[in-house]
């Protein structure tokens, strides 16, 4: 089962690079924001898969939950900032 989780994790790492492309070369700032947010979501899934690989899910659960909360707040803060600046 460890090989399966490892394979899924490596596949998600590949998908992170596709999102990173959208984050760096995105035509508008909203594309960049969506790309960064998707990278955060993938990262917390990869963290949980690492927990399964190392057999310490309870530890990695806390880290990924913090990551999810901070990713949500960060995306919301950037969106509010852009709304205030009138760029969107």
């Amino acid at each position, binding site marked *: 089962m460890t090989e399966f989780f490892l394979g899924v994790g490596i596949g998600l790492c590949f998908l992170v690079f596709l999102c990173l492309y959208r984050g760096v070369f995105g035509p508008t700032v909203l594309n960049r924001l969506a790309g960064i947010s998707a990278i955060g979501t993938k990262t917390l899934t990869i963290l949980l898969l690492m927990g399964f690989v190392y057999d310490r899910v309870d530890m990695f659960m*806390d880290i990924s939950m913090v990551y999810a909360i901070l990713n949500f707040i960060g995306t919301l803060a950037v969106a509010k900032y852009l709304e205030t600046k009138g760029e969107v």
Partner: protein
Amino acid sequence: MTRMTDDVIIKTVCRIFTPFIQIFALYVIMHGHHSPGGGFQGGVILGASFILLVITQGLDRTRRRFSQRLDTIFCSIGLLLYSGIGVLCLILGGNYLHYGKLSKLLPVAAAEARSLGILGVEIGVGIGVMAVMYSIFSDIVTGGE
């Protein structure tokens, strides 16, 4: 940045979500010694919940619940807890933050006094980091008014 958001979904979701973030932050502070986290990390999450409130509910409504005066008081309490425990160990005859000496005051053995001392310091650090993060954010957002 400081006025209330118009979107009803974001407003409702964040209002329901904030208490859970704060409970999770307290869990991170209290379980710092046998899971990832600790005082600083829990304080950051606790401060992030107040920043979320400012973003969604507006600065005025948040300040009605958590005023600047209360923020300053929390900041001082956090620093006092941290440095107070350190100086208390100094007074009891050890080094700064030498928790083992606290067993002279508390009715427990030296090992348990060390654990309780670390917990007290972590609570102080958490409160201090929360208050400082919130005050830095509100300073930046209002332009230092």
